[in-house]
């Protein structure tokens, strides 16, 4: 099924969780945050939050800024 991650379309298997998506993308949980369809997903729910067809996922981290 299709989802969007940081604006880019991706194909994933049904049942993929936020945690497994992050593993797939080789992104460490430390220092990041995720929201799905503009709703924040707390870190403790990463392993049980299953992605759905058409979901728009944003994965963010900190960068330099003022």
């Amino acid at each position: 099924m299709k989802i969007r991650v940081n604006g880019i379309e991706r194909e994933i298997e049904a049942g993929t969780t936020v945690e497994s998506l992050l593993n797939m993308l080789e992104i460490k949980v430390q220092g990041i945050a995720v929201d799905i369809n503009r709703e924040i997903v707390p870190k403790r729910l990463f392993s049980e939050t299953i992605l759905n067809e058409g979901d728009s996922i944003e994965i963010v981290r900190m960068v330099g800024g003022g």
Partner: protein
Amino acid sequence: MSDTFKIGKREFKSRLMVGTGKYPSNEIMKIALEASGAEVVTVAVRRVNLDRSSESMLDHIDKKYTLLPNTAGCYTAEDAIRTARLAREALDTEFVKLEVLGDEKTLFPDNEALLEAAKVLVKEGFTVLPYTNDDPIMAKKLEDIGCAAVMPLAAPIGSGLGIRNPHNIRIILETIKVPIIVDAGVGTASDAAIAMELGCHGILMNTGIAGAKDPVKMARAMNLAVEAGRLAYLSGRIPKKLYATASSPLSGIIE
């Protein structure tokens, strides 16, 4: 004598807060932060780059600093709220420098949207530090809804124009009780000293340091200027007069 100030529940000694953007390198940033004496450093929230597993810039920032995530680049209350929530989740901090911009050219705040976003975030338990105009009425509104500090601009972000309206800053200082942190527009050490001499509780700057030819030296200059300005404020300066008053005794002059 200790001269500390509090934002929300946290107490700070250094009155200079520094941004982490636009340094020539992470190494220079690291040394500049140290030279600035800052305890609070700002960071921005951006998408993880999925193409390469880049190192985190947080690896270059010592754990001793209090991170203040911003909502830079947000033009609506909704985006700013969302960014603040992401920052809280990523950093496990309740601190947020709230920016809601109104215009790309000036980067002036959209105060209506700022107030709306601040209300929501205060209710959600954030310690909100809003970037706003040098407008006393707006500052009062932001204090009234529960912001932990108010951060009026000295001049447009990155402009280096210095304190454009010291009189408004003074009125803001007389109007509200939460700390006033001058944010944006400070170009050189004297600008920082002026803000502190007015009685501001602190200054937040980024470009003034990061954009200098030698950011480390400028960080040190800003550190000294903030301290000098603060001491001058606490000392109570002499009144300005048009004519001279001799500083040596008038009696005992030889004839």
